[in-house]
């Protein structure tokens, strides 16, 4: 029986795969059906996992087994219920209290972490002595890294017109940005092709058995 259900599962998978690939030709009912199944299952999965992995172990179990030590957890529990009030338009304003905590915590944490990791650490990571190495390729590379970072920041400077020497610097900056976008694009081609390989592996392997999956 297990094998039969496995085969049926594969066939369902194949049908759905082609239903979605049909979008490449144009939007059609098969694609729409597959898409709605996708939306529904995905939402159901999130729902179940949120309850099993978060609400039960982190809220329900501690509150029901040892309320005395965990009574503070009732605060987020109420705020969470406030959050759900968004579903009812007449009282949706209470969700703002919960939202305020979420947004405030995120803003505070983002402020310090982005400052540290994306500003300070990137700054010190660029403070290099390019001439420290004896390897010509590395010297050129580090010089490019320094020039590229500096001119790139200049490009994103909005308080001054891009003219004269400043304009030239910004111009160099955009060249570096272009190289990095080109490189990123080239690098990324692999990502999407990988997903297609995964699909073909399923079709040719699991389904048709031409290759070993």
């Amino acid at each position, binding site marked *: 029986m297990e094998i039969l259900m496995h085969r049926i599962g594969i066939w369902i998978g194949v049908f759905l795969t082609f239903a979605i690939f049909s979008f*490449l030709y144009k939007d059609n009912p098969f694609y729409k059906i597959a898409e709605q199944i996708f939306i529904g299952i995905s939402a159901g*999965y*999130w729902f179940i*996992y*949120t309850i*099993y*992995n*978060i609400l*039960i*172990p*982190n809220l329900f*179990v*501690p509150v029901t087994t040892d309320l005395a030590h965990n009574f503070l957890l009732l605060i987020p529990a109420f705020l969470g219920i406030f959050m759900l009030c968004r579903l009812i338009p007449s009282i949706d304003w209470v969700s703002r209290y919960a939202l305020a905590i979420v947004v405030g*915590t*995120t803003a505070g*944490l*983002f402020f310090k*972490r*982005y400052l*540290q*990791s994306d500003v300070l*650490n*990137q700054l*010190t*990571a660029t403070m*290099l002595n390019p001439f420290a190495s004896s390897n010509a390729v590395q010297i050129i590379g580090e010089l490019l890294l320094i020039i590229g970072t500096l001119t790139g920041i200049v490009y994103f400077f909005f308080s001054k017109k891009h003219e004269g020497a400043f304009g030239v610097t910004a111009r160099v900056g955009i060249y570096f940005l272009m190289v*990095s976008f080109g*490189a*990123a694009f080239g*690098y*990324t*081609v*692999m*990502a*999407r*092709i*990988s*997903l*297609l*390989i*995964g*699909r*073909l*592996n399923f079709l*040719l392997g699991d389904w048709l058995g*031409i*290759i070993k999956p």
Partner: protein
Amino acid sequence: MKIFERFLHIDRRIIFVLIFIGVALPLIWTLGFNLEVTENVQSVYDLLEGLDPGTRILISFDYGPSTKPEIQPMTIALMEQAFTSRLRIIAIALWPMGVQMCNEAFEKVSAEYPNIEYGIDFINLGYKAGGMVTINHMAKDFRSTFPADAGGNPIDEFPIMKDIKNFDKLGCVISLSAGDPGLKQWVMIAHDTFGKPVVGGTTAVQAPTMLPYVNEQQQLVGLLGGLKGAAEYELLVNKPGFATKGMDAQSVAHLIIIFFILIGNIGYFATRKQKDTLKA
């Protein structure tokens, strides 16, 4: 000259079909191009090799089935290495689908390591929402973030969780990440705030934006980028798998794309010259 005009406007469905065939054929007949291990991949390998046997490492599963072909091979190779060098894995997920990805990988790898025991050498603690804030919370109070494993059993029951109160007792953190929340947040919290070595495996989409973190401060010690990163890792652990097999198909698909870029540019320059002469 008409042919060059045509070079400029190839119907994209021709490209679609060629890509499809170009990926399918090398999967059936392998070509076997050779592969070289790059610096960033080697650093990941070296970091794990440098840990003492018995050390606990945290692996965060921050991806789902949509990017499984790219990241699952990395997961499997990393697990192989960890179990071979007797490292113990604490698995968590910041994406709910990550829990299933972890189960699938563990089932596959643990079949070859009969003495690996759940709760001693490996544990799956399940999914938590909240991204960066939750990482920050577990770094300060691990046990209240994860009171139970994915099956709902209290973590006190498992020897692998002994003394784990924060990140102090972990050898390193690995994030297998397909987006947000993922590797970036782990770098910001686990390394930049709590000083733990962080390595990651990401999709090739994300990798270029993560590279600035691979620097002499080692915000990120090493990075596996896309299927190539996975294939290189398979080479390092000596277990060629899906990624290695996929590299031929990658090469052919890339060649097809480059071929079309060339055609487009030839058409562009040829017709432009023509237009220039007409103008003159």
